[in-house]
């Protein structure tokens, strides 16, 4: 059963109540039942109006994305028919002649909100948890159930476009202010009452874009409809589309088809009657839904992310664990950040540092972040106090007594880490686990300091901890499945995404990510214009250019890592990262931290590329094409991810993809650093990588595994 149907005072109430899924979604089960219920209400002469609501806390949260993935390879005509079918249902709601009210009792997103848009009136229950919006673009899609046509017709181009282009959802009061809903209700009873009242007052509703045909009396689309706030072909429209398109391009670098399609749906569709507009939307929807980018985003950033967040990498054999008391050693930026996210999840935190002042400062970091939320009105002072009260700054090791998990976040110094491990470890509760937040030192080596190496694990956070949602869990040689389970459960509890990697130099994220920085330096050394290098990185979809990111990492650190690799025999003196970082460090250009690296960092104003680069690395007369530079920057990362996977450094392809997107900002449209290969097609990738290797060096040579895969072996 998907829809509960009741008749009350001549009004049919259709309550979404999907039994096959925890939340109401539009899918193959629910759509036919919904249509049946609607038809029953249309046909029943005793029904004067229809209320659509939900029996669950949420209204309807969207369409089933698996449905889209399943249809990606289908005939586009078939896919169009599926989308057109849904639009016929929605259009019939508008034109059936009976008033239909959406009683939005909870969150209504995507297709769920498009049901509401197809109603004649929308009333939302004023509940703090309710979110309303059209988030399709975030998964590479567009609102294909009439959203691109009805929302701008309701609230105007200027208000509707940003909501759809950003996929931003809003709370109930903003929804009312923007016109996404027509009214609010304080209680569920009032919600229904208001819906009944509206139906009584509007026995023959008509959307502003519709009219009654004089001859037949049927409701039909108006030939000309004036968009509130200005038509497409108006001064306002010109502004919206010229600047709006530029803004989309600035944000997406042209890498995502969906936002461009949304603009086109609105531009083309709002110049014609709504039925024609819906047909236009349908065609764009099919194109976008069949795009590789949509498939990649759905697979990695929706289905994959959900899977990872549910603990896909967790050993199934271990029973659920729960960290209630957490110890953190070192109250610096990382330690303080870990304290903040942990306290937010209700975990009692002992934040230890060598001085009271340092420990208190670590706690103050949380206070600052909480105050920001309070200023925005998203957090009550009571709740903030409760969170803060969970953090106990201390200098006393004994305060760590009874911790389920202790994470050290002290300097990257082996001796220091060994010392704090030995000090703190005895304080752990029975079955307690010791974690290291190291980003560079091998876990197996650090575990030697531990009395219980099987309970020693790497828990690598990214900075800033409150914003970065990835945690790289590193399994050392002796680390037990139990310790892994504790780490994964903890990461889930703080609502971050865990990926699991095996112990190797640079682990997974640092190692793969450093190839981006390194290729940037290779290009620079070859005489490629630094501006071109940086822009190519950004245009490829990376958040910042490779030289800028190297400055962020700090050149002395890059130098240290390169020296270590040299000492370990993992690279040679000729290594570009080694050479360039050495050169810059000798000039005391350490990166952002001392205001001088590949960039200059003026006290006032924006950073800019250091003009001195032109002398160190003269710009060659002939420059590579933008595409080639982009390619080199992305291929390096993808190849390193492949190597990590083939070497068993990263355990699953999903973790490799998620780690790349969430950890170092590899562009999501590719599906992730590993999926990038498939995105381009394995044989095309191998062919191109070979060509790059021939031109630029063996670092581009595809692995044996890839070559076999490409050859279809």
């Amino acid at each position, binding site marked *: 059963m998907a829809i509960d149907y009741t008749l009350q005072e001549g009004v049919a109430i259709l309550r979404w109540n999907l039994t096959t899924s925890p939340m109401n979604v539009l899918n193959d089960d629910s759509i036919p039942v919904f249509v049946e219920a609607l038809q029953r209400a249309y046909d029943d002469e005793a029904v004067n109006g229809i209320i659509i609501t939900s029996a669950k806390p949420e209204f309807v949260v969207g369409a089933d994305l698996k449905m889209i993935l399943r249809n990606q390879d289908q005939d586009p005509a078939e896919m169009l028919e599926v989308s057109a079918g849904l639009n016929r249902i929605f259009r019939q709601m508008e034109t059936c002649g009976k008033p239909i009210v959406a009683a939005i009792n909870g969150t209504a997103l995507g297709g769920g909100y498009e049901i509401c848009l197809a109603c004649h009136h929308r009333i939302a229950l004023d509940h703090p948890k309710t979110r309303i919006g059209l988030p399709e673009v975030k998964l590479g899609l567009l609102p294909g159930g009439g959203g691109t046509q009805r929302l701008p017709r309701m609230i105007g181009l200027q208000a509707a476009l940003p909501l759809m282009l950003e996929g931003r959802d809003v709370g109930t009061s903003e929804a009312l202010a923007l016109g996404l809903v027509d009214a609010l209700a304080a209680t569920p009873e009032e919600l229904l009452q208001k819906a009944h009242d509206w139906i009584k007052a509007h026995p023959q509703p008509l959307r502003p874009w519709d009219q009654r045909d004089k001859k037949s009396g049927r409701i039909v689309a108006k030939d000309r409809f004036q968009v509130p706030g200005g038509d*497409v*072909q108006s*001064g306002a*429209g*010109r502004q919206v*589309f*010229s*600047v*709006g*398109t*530029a*803004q*989309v*391009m*600035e*944000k997406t*670098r*042209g890498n995502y088809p969906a936002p*461009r399609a949304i*603009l*086109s749906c609105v*531009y083309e569709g709002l110049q014609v009657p709504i039925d024609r507009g819906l047909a236009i939307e349908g065609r764009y929807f099919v194109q976008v839904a069949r795009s590789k980018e949509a498939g990649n985003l759905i697979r990695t950033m929706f289905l994959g992310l959900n899977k990872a967040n549910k603990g896909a990498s967790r050993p199934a054999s271990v029973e659920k664990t729960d960290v209630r008391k957490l110890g953190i050693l070192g109250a610096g930026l990382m330690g303080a950040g870990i304290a903040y996210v942990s306290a937010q999840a209700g975990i009692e935190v002992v934040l230890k540092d060598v001085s009271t002042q340092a420990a208190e400062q670590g706690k103050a970091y949380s206070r600052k972040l909480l105050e920001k939320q309070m200023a925005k009105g998203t957090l009550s002072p009571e709740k903030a106090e409760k969170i803060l009260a969970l953090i106990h700054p201390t200098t006393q090791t004994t305060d760590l007594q009874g911790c389920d998990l202790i994470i050290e976040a002290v300097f990257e110094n082996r001796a220091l880490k060994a010392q704090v491990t030995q000090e703190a470890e005895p304080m752990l509760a029975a079955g307690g686990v010791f974690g290291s937040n190291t980003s560079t030192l091998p876990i197996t080596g650090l575990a030697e300091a531990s009395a219980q190496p099987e309970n020693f694990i790497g828990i690598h956070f990214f900075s800033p901890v409150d914003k970065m949602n990835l945690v790289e869990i590193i399994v050392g040689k002796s680390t037990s499945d139990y310790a892994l389970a504790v780490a994964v459960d903890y990461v889930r509890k703080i609502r971050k995404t865990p990926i699991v990697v095996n112990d190797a130099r640079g682990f997974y994220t640092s190692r793969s990510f450093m190839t981006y920085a390194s290729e940037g330096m290779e290009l620079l050394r070859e005489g490629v*214009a630094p*501006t*071109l290098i*940086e*822009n*190519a990185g950004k*245009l490829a979809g990376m958040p910042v250019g490779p030289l800028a990111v190297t400055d962020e990492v700090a050149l002395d650190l890059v130098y240290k890592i390169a020296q270590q690799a040299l000492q370990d025999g993992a690279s040679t003196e000729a290594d570009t990262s080694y050479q360039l970082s050495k050169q810059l460090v000798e000039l005391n250009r350490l990166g952002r931290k001392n205001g001088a690296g590949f960039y200059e960092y003026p006290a006032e104003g924006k950073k*800019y*590329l250091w003009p001195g680069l032109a002398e160190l690395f003269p710009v060659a007369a002939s*420059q590579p094409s*933008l595409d080639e530079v982009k390619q080199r920057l992305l291929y390096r990362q993808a190849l390193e991810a492949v190597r990590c996977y083939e070497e068993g450094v990263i355990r699953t392809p999903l973790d490799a993809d998620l780690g790349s997107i969430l950890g170092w900002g590899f562009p999501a449209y590719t599906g992730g650093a590993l999926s990038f290969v498939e995105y381009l097609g394995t044989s095309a990738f191998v062919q191109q990588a070979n060509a790059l290797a021939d031109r630029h060096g063996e670092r581009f040579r595809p692995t044996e595994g890839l070559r076999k895969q490409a050859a279809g072996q």
Partner: protein
Amino acid sequence: MTEALIYDAVRTPRGRGKADGALHEVPPLRLLTTVLEQLRDRNQLDTTYLDDVLMGCVTPLGEQGADIARTAVLAAGYAESVAGVQLNRFCSSGLEAINMAAAYLRAGQTDLVIAGGVESMSRVAMGSDGGALFMDPAMVAAHNIVPQGISADLIATRYGYSRAELDALAAESYRRAEIAQRENRFAKSLVSVYDALGTLLLGHDEGVRPGTTAESLGKLKPAFEALGQQGLDALALMKYPELSRIEHVHHAGNSSQIADGAAGLLMGTRAAGERLSLKPRARIRATAVVGSEPTIMLTGPVPAAQKVLRRAGLSIRDIDLWEVNEAFAAVPMYFMDALGVDPAVVNVNGGGIAMGHPLGATGAILTATLLDELERRDKTLGLVTLCIGGGMGIATIIERVN
């Protein structure tokens, strides 16, 4: 091949294209009618000999809509048998009309025509016709289409033209225009615009501001910076990844002024002229149009000039005087830079920066100005060229005849 000869040229003054401009109350039809009346009257033209009137108009909307050329033919009291066509190749429309007329004449398809253009920018706003090129998201995104001011700033950034250099070029335009006005160098073509009672509305180019210097221009605020920050710089830079940013160096004082005006050239074959006892002043030696990169948009004059020179079998040194439309200071600067043309012979009487750029009319105004100046200096060859929206360039070489 039949020759395309210029017998006369007439233009209105350029009024400030704003609500306080002297020509604001004059409908564009009246501007164009003034030109047609003058050409008829001062040549004692029996208009039954005239085949067609070709008029450029870039924003053919409202009172500039519905074929303003034919409308003006009727309004001016020309013979009913004279046809009229309005055409649009953006900023080059006035010259495009001349080139098209030349093509008809040289092909023997027509004998006597008037070609020119009209634009009342104060009454019909630039860009009010929209257009898929500038609005359709698919076009804008795929071809990185940005407003011209951003393109002009992009040219300056790409070729390293500083604000000071551009302001100096603009100040020179003002200086030359002022001298030209003082010495009455525009007198031959320039016709005053009067109201219905015969009172003078405007008899000179209104935009010229004596005393304008590079220093005074230096105080003006960049015009396209705010627009650029709304994503348009980023859109343009996607095509120019070797640049880290766009320097916004153009402003109201070193860009062409918004203006109202009209112009027309009486053109015909030699036989037609002889029949009407008209004395030819110049011939159209060669014409050319090119498409160029649409994001930077305004670099077309360089390849257009190269093409027209090639077609005419001439070299840069052969050209005595040049008119390069001052859409933005960077446009003539890039032109002179790229071709190595001596600034002393380019826009010798100032240009659009000092006097305005009534979009549809400018091409014809520049041609008229060039012809007058060739005669005044007793020189032979002149080249007129304009940059064009959407990434195009146009160029025409005229040659004086006796």
